[in-house]
C-alpha cells in the first residue's frame, strides 16, 4: 500500500467514523463497511440511497442498516468486505502508530482502550467487531516509532473509538423502549408520528396527539425522593396503556412528559380519551405507604389534531401549547388546540 493510499484510506475512514457518530450508528463491521463505502464513493447507488434516507431525515434503525448491507454487500462479498475494511482501518492505525514509540504512555493507553473495547461482553452480537479490534491491537503492538504528531493523532483516534463504543452501548440499551416505564422512547416516538402522519395524509383520516405532563412532579421528587418519582412515572405509564386502544401509541416524550398518538381520532374524541386518563388516575391512585402520605398524582393534558401538510414540529408544538394552557389554567385539566384549517 502506497503512502497516498494510506492517507486517502485514513481520510475516508475518518469521514466514515465521523458520520457514524453524527447519525448514532452502532460501530459494527457491517455498518463500518457501509459508511466506508459511502465516503469512498465506490458505489453511486449506495450513495444515492443513503442520501435519500438522510435528506428525508429517516433514522438508520437496525432494519434499515441490515437492508443496506444486504442490498449492497452480497453474502459472497461479505468476508472480503470485512477484510478490506479491516485493512483500511489497519492502514489508518499504521499511519497513526507506525512511527510511534509503543513504550510511551500514549501508546499504552491506546492499546488499553482498544483492548477494553474488545473485551466487553458483546461477543455474541458483535463478534466480528471484536475480531476487528483484536486485529488492530495485535497490529499496533507490532509497530514502533517516534513522533509528537503521532501521539496527538493517537489520542484523537482513541477518543473516536471510545465515542463509537458509547454509541454501541446506547444502541443496545435504548433501541426503542424507555427503560424505566417500558413504553416507547423519544426516538421511537419520532418514528411513530412520522408513520402515523404519513398514513393520515394518504387516507385523510383523523389523527390526534395528547401531551401529558405530571403536575408538580418536582415536588414529588423533592419530598419523597427519586425512587418514588420513578414509581409515579411507572404508574402513569401503566394508566396510559390501559386507557388507549390497540392501534394507539404511548411514548415517554422526556422527563415527566408523555405523549399518546391516536389514529382515527378527532379533537373531541381525543379530549374524551384525555378525560378518561385524568379520571382513571383519580380512581386508581398509587398504593404506597409514605410519610407524609403521597399526594394523588394529577396530570395536565394538551390535545392537538394533525393538520396534513404542516411540519410535524408544528403539530407537536400545538399540542405543547395546549398543555401549557392547561397548566396555566390551574392544572389537572385537558385543553384542546383547535386545528388551524
Amino acid at each position: 500500500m502506497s503512502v497516498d493510499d494510506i492517507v486517502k484510506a485514513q481520510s475516508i475512514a475518518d469521514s466514515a467514523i465521523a458520520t457514524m457518530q453524527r447519525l448514532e450508528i452502532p460501530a459494527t463491521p457491517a455498518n463500518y463497511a457501509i459508511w466506508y463505502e459511502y465516503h469512498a464513493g465506490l458505489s453511486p447507488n449506495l450513495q444515492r440511497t443513503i442520501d435519500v434516507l438522510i435528506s428525508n431525515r429517516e433514522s438508520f434503525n437496525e432494519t434499515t442498516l441490515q437492508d443496506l448491507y444486504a442490498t449492497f454487500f452480497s453474502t459472497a462479498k461479505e468476508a472480503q468486505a470485512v477484510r478490506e475494511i479491516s485493512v483500511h482501518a489497519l492502514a489508518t492505525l499504521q499511519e497513526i502508530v507506525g512511527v510511534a514509540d509503543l513504550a510511551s504512555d500514549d501508546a499504552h493507553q491506546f492499546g488499553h482502550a482498544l483492548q477494553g473495547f474488545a473485551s466487553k461482553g458483546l461477543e455474541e452480537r458483535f463478534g466480528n467487531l471484536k475480531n476487528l479490534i483484536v486485529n488492530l491491537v495485535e497490529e499496533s503492538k507490532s509497530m514502533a516509532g517516534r513522533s509528537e504528531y503521532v501521539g496527538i493523532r493517537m489520542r484523537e483516534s482513541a477518543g473516536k473509538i471510545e465515542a463509537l463504543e458509547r454509541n454501541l452501548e446506547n444502541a443496545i440499551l435504548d433501541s426503542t423502549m424507555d427503560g424505566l416505564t417500558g413504553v416507547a422512547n423519544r426516538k421511537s416516538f419520532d418514528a411513530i408520528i412520522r408513520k402515523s402522519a404519513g398514513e393520515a395524509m394518504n387516507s385523510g383520516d383523523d389523527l390526534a396527539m395528547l401531551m401529558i405532563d405530571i403536575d408538580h412532579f418536582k415536588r414529588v421528587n423533592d419530598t419523597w425522593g427519586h425512587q418514588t418519582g420513578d414509581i409515579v412515572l411507572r404508574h402513569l405509564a401503566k394508566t396510559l396503556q390501559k386507557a388507549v386502544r390497540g392501534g394507539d401509541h404511548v411514548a415517554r416524550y422526556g422527563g415527566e412528559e408523555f405523549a399518546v398518538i391516536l389514529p382515527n381520532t378527532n379533537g373531541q374524541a381525543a379530549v374524551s380519551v384525555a378525560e378518561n386518563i385524568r379520571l382513571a388516575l383519580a380512581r386508581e391512585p398509587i398504593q404506597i405507604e409514605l410519610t407524609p402520605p403521597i399526594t394523588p398524582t394529577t396530570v395536565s393534558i394538551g390535545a392537538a389534531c394533525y393538520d396534513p401538510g404542516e411540519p410535524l414540529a408544528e403539530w407537536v408544538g400545538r399540542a405543547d401549547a395546549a398543555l401549557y394552557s392547561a397548566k396555566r389554567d390551574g392544572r389537572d385539566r385537558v385543553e384542546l388546540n383547535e386545528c388551524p384549517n
Partner: protein
Amino acid sequence: MNATSGFCLLVDDSLLVRKIARKIFTRLSFEVDEAENGQIALDKCQSRMPDVVLLDWNMPVMDGLEFLKSLRRTEGGRGPAVIFCTTETDVEHIQKALANGANEYLMKPFDQESLIAKLDLVFFRK
C-alpha cells in the same frame, strides 16, 4: 421565479395529498394538473409533457413504478423530473425507484419545506 416555474403533474389517488401539493406548487408559481392513477397520468403526459411529476407509489389501475417505467420509454418521457412521494421508507423501494429513473424520493408526510428541498435538488443539482 418567472411568471410560471413550469408545468407540474400530481399523480396520487389521495385527494388530500393532491390538494396539499397543489397549494404548495401553486405558491411556487407552477402550473398544476392532477391524475389519480398512473394510467391517467400517462395519458396526460402524452398530450402535454410536464416538467415535474410528483408520484405516489400505491395507486389502483397503474401504480407509480409502472407509470415511471412507461413514462421513461415514451418519446420525450426522459425529460420530466420525477419525485416519488410515498409512505414507503425501506431501502428496497428507494432502490427500485432510483434504478427505474426517479430523480428524487420524498417521504410522506411532506410539508412545504421538505418538498422545496427536493425541488432544489432536482433543478439545481450540480
